[in-house]
């Protein structure tokens, strides 16, 4: 029986009422008294030496309050990087200065050069046209393979453009080489993971404010993690202590990773507001976001998979060039390394694995985590290569995967790439997906398509991801410069309703609904008695934010821990009221009762007693009913599943028609099935968008050629059939109190290889073995027609 409230119920998303009626409060909806407007003059070339910036004429324009360049910002820190990777020689990665405004050189189209602060945005924009730039253009560093061979350098202090050269697992290198040399068969595939623009519905925005009377700063920003921004910006860039800096991330219209990072514009508006003693608002338009918000993916990889005669995987060897862009974004170095190398075992028993990752600076927009972050790249490599191997070995692609799956009795399973999977059942999700996709009937459908002159293909993919990021001590050892716990405060108010203050941040995930379901379920109260507060460092004790499918697994766990403390304390108060021992008190459906008696007291009475403590165990307890918890996970969580995609290709036009897409996911326990299904749908759309149409293209001069929605194709509902989603094959996570694994990124991780495998399957009879994403009609047609 589906539940209609609490954990397991498909409660409607309460936040949608304000989003769908235009009542959301996004950063650009906020206006502060005396507010001014910033317009940022950005580089329109990819690489050049700044000889001079003349702001004289601009400063004299009407409405201009001040024009800022890097010369005004001496003494401030650069934009920091939050993760340090150690290269194969034990040296730290190269971490060149990332100034708030370009200093000395411009390094990508969109690099901020100067900011005009004006009374109105129009005045600021007009004045920016009067800024005289004297810039000598340099050759743009674009191609990663040639960039590391010498020539022009993006940063003078990194002459070979190599940020780091990373090997993992270094001690397995020889074993992998030997296994490949002696294998029955080795399947080799070279592929590109195409660069993407995150394109959340709301472009970035920031408002900086300074209160001269108190010395307090406030930053309103489009962030997925306001406390992290407070830490990075306050401590490393502007030297503002936390108690004088408030960061508010109000309603945020999507992030997909691109709003995790600390951006120069946030530091600028906060700092400059104190210079002019007035609030400053900056809002990116879509064009500006295309050239300034962190982009995703952009890996070029060679994969070699060694097998014995039965198709058992013996070893995997990968080498990747990972594009960092012009500067290191906050978490950029960990994406191609620890979020990627550690997932190369996939769902399989491959005994030894080695990967080499070279991270390269280029004159492009910085690259960082984007929905999935490293794990889609790992999954794509693995699942494309396995598909190619199945064809080369003459083994059915589902059968080849099954032969190599980690088996249910092998958990906990330590992979050769440093992670330990707690639970899973990959055969179960594969069987479920095969049933939903009617794999058995595929040959009949293929024959029907052939009769119509169409090529039909079936694409299989398994995936696994490491979510619930992350055990702090582990990630600290791997180079993280932060802990990755989560914090939650549960405040039970005197009449029994509950305010939850969570460090997780919701920007589309539906936390306000899901978290309330968890709390209501534990109390036995209506969901509407619970409010979820997030996104403001002045209200919430602490937080590490939302990314890596961590909010329910880590943030939800922190809420559960606080609720457990609340219930324990409330039980003691109830015991006092009922003159019983606390050990005999049970709490169920909103009632505290004494076991074996008919004595009971309601939740509301206990809450009131906590705040009106006339009859109260003052010798044991303090009044009030509020608890804060910090939850640091013991391990990652490992959502996994099987995706099957069926396509029909028109050989005359190269158009790919997705006929069906099924997703059988194991997310562990599910709190709100409807929200989970929605998250999967969104992830699938983004993954299929990458596979079929999205591509950030730069020309050889570093100009972005797909820099608007006219040229950067975003997927639309009409591009896909209704996705069929199942999450019945679940193996609950063993180490968090809810048994949940996370569902936000799965769709974007598993779907690209499923789609590409399907198209290659359709085209295999015509000799096609691989097509690089995106599989546009032009690329598909070209593959068919040489």
């Amino acid at each position, binding site marked *: 029986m589906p539940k209609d409230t609490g954990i397991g119920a498909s409660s409607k998303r309460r936040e949608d009422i304000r989003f769908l009626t235009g009542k959301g409060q996004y950063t650009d909806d906020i206006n502060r008294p005396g507010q001014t407007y910033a317009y940022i003059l950005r580089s*329109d*070339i990819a690489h050049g030496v700044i000889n001079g910036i003349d702001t004289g004429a601009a400063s004299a324009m009407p409405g201009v309050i001040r024009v800022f360049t890097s010369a005004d910002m001496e003494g401030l820190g650069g934009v920091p990087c939050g993760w340090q990777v150690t290269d194969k020689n034990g040296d730290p990665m190269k971490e060149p200065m990332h100034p708030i405004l370009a200093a000395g050189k411009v390094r990508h*189209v969109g690099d901020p050069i100067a900011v005009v602060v004006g009374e109105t945005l129009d005045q600021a*924009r007009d004045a*920016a*046209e009067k800024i005289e730039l004297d810039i000598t253009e340099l050759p743009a560093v674009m191609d990663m393979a040639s960039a590391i061979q010498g020539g022009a350098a993006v940063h003078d202090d990194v002459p070979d453009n190599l940020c780091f050269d990373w090997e993992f697992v270094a001690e397995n290198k020889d074993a992998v080489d030997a296994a490949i040399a002696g294998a029955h068969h080795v399947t080799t595939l070279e592929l590109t993971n195409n660069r993407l623009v995150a394109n959340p519905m709301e472009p970035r925005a920031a408002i900086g404010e300074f209160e001269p009377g108190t010395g307090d700063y406030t930053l309103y920003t489009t962030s997925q993690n306001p406390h992290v921004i407070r830490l990075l910006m306050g401590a490393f860039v502007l030297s503002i202590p936390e108690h004088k800096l408030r960061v508010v991330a109000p309603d945020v219209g999507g992030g997909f990773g691109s709003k995790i990072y600390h951006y120069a514009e946030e530091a600028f508006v906060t700092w400059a507001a104190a210079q002019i003693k007035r609030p400053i608002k900056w809002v990116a338009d879509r*064009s500006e976001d*295309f*050239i300034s918000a962190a982009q995703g993916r952009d890996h070029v990889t060679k994969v070699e998979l060694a097998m014995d005669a039965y198709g058992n995987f013996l070893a995997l060897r990968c080498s990747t060039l990972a594009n960092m862009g012009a500067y290191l974004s906050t978490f950029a170095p960990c994406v191609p390394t620890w979020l990627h190398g550690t997932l190369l075992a996939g769902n399989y028993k491959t005994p030894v694995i080695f990967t080499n990752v070279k991270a390269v600076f280029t004159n492009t927009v910085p690259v960082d985590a984007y929905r999935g972050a490293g794990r889609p790249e790992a999954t794509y490599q693995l699942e494309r290569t396995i598909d190619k191997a199945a064809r080369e070995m003459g083994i059915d692609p589902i059968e080849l995967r099954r032969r190599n799956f980690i088996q249910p009795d092998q958990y906990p399973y330590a992979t050769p790439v440093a992670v330990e999977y707690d639970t899973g059942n990959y055969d179960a999700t594969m069987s479920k997906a095969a049933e939903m996709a009617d794999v058995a009937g595929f040959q009949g459908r293929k024959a029907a398509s052939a009769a119509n002159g169409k090529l039909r293909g079936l694409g299989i993919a398994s995936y696994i991801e490491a979510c619930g990021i992350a055990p702090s001590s582990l990630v600290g050892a791997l180079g993280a410069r932060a802990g990755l716990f989560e914090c939650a405060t549960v405040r039970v108010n005197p009449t029994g309703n509950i305010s939850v203050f969570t460090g997780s941040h919701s920007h589309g995930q539906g936390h306000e609904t899901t978290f309330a379901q968890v709390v209501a379920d534990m109390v036995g109260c209506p969901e509407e008695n619970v409010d979820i507060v997030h996104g403001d460092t002045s209200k919430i004790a602490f937080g590490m934010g939302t990314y890596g499918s961590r909010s329910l697994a880590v943030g939800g766990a922190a809420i559960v821990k606080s609720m457990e403390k609340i219930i324990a304390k409330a039980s003691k108060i109830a015991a006092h009221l009922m003159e019983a021992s606390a050990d005999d008190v049970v709490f169920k459906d909103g009632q505290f009762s004494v076991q074996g008696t008919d004595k009971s007291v309601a939740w509301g009475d206990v809450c009131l007693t906590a705040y009106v403590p006339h009859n109260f165990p003052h010798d044991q307890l303090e009044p009030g009913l509020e608890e804060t918890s910090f939850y640091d996970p013991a391990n990652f969580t490992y959502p996994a599943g099987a995706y099957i995609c069926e396509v029909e290709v028109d050989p005359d036009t190269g158009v790919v028609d997705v006929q069906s897409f099924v997703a059988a996911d194991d997310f562990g326990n599910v709190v709100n099935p409807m929200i989970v299904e929605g998250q999967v749908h969104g992830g699938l759309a983004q993954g299929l968008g990458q596979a079929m149409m999205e591509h950030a293209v730069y*020309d050889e*001069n570093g*100009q*972005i*050629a*797909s*820099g*608007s929605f*006219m*040229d950067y194709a975003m997927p639309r509902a009409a591009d896909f059939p209704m996705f069929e989603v199942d999450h019945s094959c679940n193996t609950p996570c063993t180490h968090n109190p809810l048994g949940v694994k996370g569902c936000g990124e799965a769709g974007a991780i598993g779907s690209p290889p499923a789609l590409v495998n399907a198209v290659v399957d359709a085209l295999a009879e015509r000799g096609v073995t691989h097509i690089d994403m995106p599989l546009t009609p032009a690329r598909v047609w070209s593959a068919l027609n040489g």
Partner: protein
Amino acid sequence: MEMSGERLIAAPRGVVWKALNDPEVLKACIPGCEEIEQTSPTELTAKVTQKVGPVKAKFTGQIELSDIVPEESYRISGTGKGGAAGGASGGAAVSLTETDDGTMLTYQAEAKVTGKIAQLGARLIDGFAKKMADQFFSRFQEVVEGPKGDAEATEGDGADGDVPADEKKGLWARLTGA
């Protein structure tokens, strides 16, 4: 982007060369050119208004003539700043050879755009640059070849590739002394 082409112009090489070095002729022939001013024997400044796809901008630019071999060849190059719209730069190597029917003008040109024009109009640039080159050389040919018998009948409005007939006559007179 790069492009090349050639035009047979029914005029003596000396006249064609003179036209290639005449700011007034260049002004009449560069599409969208509103002002041109010679600042040295080989340098000019110009103001040009153009629309690339969705972006319309007024460019302020420098034009430079180099590699000059009188009556034979030169290189004309220019850079333009279009403010918030971005920038454009390009050049052409132009050479002249005498033929029985007049003068063969051959050119090899390249063009590059930056900023918002590149961001929004990249896929339009090749066609745009080719159209600009075609317009320039068509106008140039008209001006240098002088008024034809039916010039009045085909009088254009100057808006799309045509130089107004009376302006053409005036320029032709400048070039030929007629």
